[in-house]
């Protein structure tokens, strides 16, 4: 079950209901500046699947968002987090034209949720080319399902706010981070 909070060519923010019952401390009042500051601290790299993980050279993490992307996304995330319920999460998609804009769009997508004192974020696509149509533009009627979400490893700087909750899920101690007045410092 989803409902759309905002949708334009650049940003889509939706509220998604969790499949399994959960109890987030939603809604959350965070300003877009605070959200941007938090997101600025994240960097990311793709997790290789086994057995490639044993052999492939791993790329260094990249900042999750560029500054222009943060400016586009944060205000709508603020809105989304205000509308989300305890059993829901805020899903986002940040879109840019793909290599062939007729065919696909470059997408960063994932979801955010808050269970005090932690903020959780999961990334499904990081600069992934997602088809703009359900069926191929050129190969008539051949289905183009979006690629399946990939596994990514996320990092957060300053690292002392990047911790694990009681269920061993990684999350940002966002209240502490915001109180500290420090800025997110993902390597750029």
């Amino acid at each position, binding site marked *: 079950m989803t409902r759309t909070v905002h949708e334009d060519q650049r940003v889509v923010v939706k509220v998604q209901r969790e499949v399994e019952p959960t109890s987030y401390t939603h809604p959350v009042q965070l300003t877009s500046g605070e959200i941007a500051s938090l997101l600025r601290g994240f960097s990311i790299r793709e997790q290789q699947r086994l057995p490639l993980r044993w052999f492939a050279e791993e790329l260094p993490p*990249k900042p999750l968002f560029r500054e222009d992307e943060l400016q586009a996304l944060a205000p709508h995330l603020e809105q989304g987090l205000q509308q989300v319920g305890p059993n829901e999460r805020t899903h986002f998609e940040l879109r840019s034209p793909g290599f062939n804009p007729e065919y696909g769009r470059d997408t960063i997508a994932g979801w955010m949720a808050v269970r005090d004192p932690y903020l959780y974020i999961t990334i499904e696509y990081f*600069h992934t080319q997602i088809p703009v149509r*359900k*069926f191929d533009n*050129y*190969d*008539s009627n051949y*289905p183009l399902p979006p690629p399946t979400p990939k596994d990514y490893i996320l990092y957060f700087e300053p690292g002392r706010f990047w911790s694990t909750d009681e269920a061993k899920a990684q999350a940002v101690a966002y209240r502490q981070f915001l109180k500290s007045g420090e800025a997110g410092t993902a390597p750029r």
Partner: protein
Amino acid sequence: MSTYRRGVRALMIAALLVGLSSVTLAQAADSGKLVEKDGKYVFVESMDPSLKLLLERSVKSGMITQGEYDQVMKESEERTQLLSPSFRGWYDRGFNLSMNDNAFFLKIRFRSQLRFTQRFRNDAWRNPGEAKNFPELLGVFGDYRANRSENSASSFNVRRLRFYFMGHLFDPDFKYYIQMRAETAKNAQSPGSLSLFDVNFSYTRLPWANVQFGQYKVYFNRSQINSTASMQFAERALVQDAFTASGLDRRDIGITIMNDEELFPVNYYIGVFNGAGPSFNRLGSFTSEQATVDCPGGQTSGNPFPTPAGCPVNQRNLNANTRLDVDRLMYVARLNWNILGRPGYGEGDLAYSETPQFAIGGGYSYNPGINTSSDNAFVGLDLANLNIRRQLAAFGNGRQLGLGIVDYSTWAADGVFKYRGFSLQGEFYFKNVIRHNKGLPCMNTACTETAPNNFGNAMGWYVQSGYYLIPRTVELSARYAYWDPDTASANDLIKQADVSLNWFLNGTYDHQIMVTYSNTQFGTGGYAIGRSAPLPPGSGIVPLDTVGGTLIENAIRVQYQIFF
């Protein structure tokens, strides 16, 4: 600001500009771009990081102003733009090549289906064998052969091997599509070679009136519009092949006007085609005629086909290949209504639809003037075009061989539902076969002996369903198909049941492994001209019908597909 400081600042800017110009891959700080590297998309800052750092520190220390910084950035971006190649290439579901202005785009893809088949057939396949629906036509005259085999067969096969070249020219709305195939047909007696399968162009500027022309699959029925790359089973059901728009093949040469399936809830398709199958037209189909007009050619002077009254005695002299019915075309129309969502034509709910997807559709096709055999309705004399007859036999319409010139009027109705990994799809077909020669088919020129009954029509249906045990990854599917190839005959039904376990390795149709079990039963009853008694007088007897029985085949197909 002192003259000295201004001088130092100017020197600094000059040094930075020189530095910028000496960097091969100079790029702008905030523009950057995604670069595909080793299969991953990596964001690369446009400017050399050390230069960027120097510039930023220069701004911070006041050596240059923000305005100067911005100007340098802009010039750097422009320079990068000018130095970059006018095309780019990347991999995304095929190798892609595009000009920067997007005036030309080429996507190259490759698809193969490698298959192992283990099949078990009952003794009826040894005798009488399958001679009515799928006879083999051998030699230059295309003599009928019953299709027989021993009980068990094990074979590896390159079932499909395709090369694709597609993209757009001049403008993203003018698209082209070329498909080459290189596989070998299942029962072929020699290896296949590379041949043209599809070549067509589409103009999509008007979403409500897209135009496609060239050679392609006719938009008529659901199962044939769908690609063999996106099926729930290793092979189409036999009934799906038997009811194509032309009655000959799923492909044809012609033109279709349709609206954009993604934009409109109701989709229409109106097409006009040769109606003679792929890479072929009606001018290739002829009737043998003596130099005397309207007198049948070939060696028809002897019994049971003496020269008709008013015609000279037939002899081997100059005869004519006469093109008749060459002004005919095939007309096809289809409507599809996406009642809920947009289920599309790919089989199964691979996308794991979050909302119900439901569509119904139907098509009608009229393909007149197909010469299925000689005018005198028997094999061996005045044979019609071999390509036409082989197409009939290859798609299971062998019972229509020998009916003379026929008009096909074919109907199809279909429906599909998908939701959360579950899918249900079905189609119903009916084909009215209108013979130009009325009455019972003649066994001799005087028509003193005839076939025991007329061919009726053909009808069939199938229903298939699937469910993703693991979303987007593992699907279990089942299908049942029913086909009556001649509604005027008894004991001729073809029934097929399939179960398939499918593993989609990366969550798309592109990479998959299928294990499909099929049980097929062919009734051998009914009359087929040239393969059932009576044959023309003096042509001997055909003992196949006295053997009778039901042909049963159990087959397991293990298939690996990769489409890249």
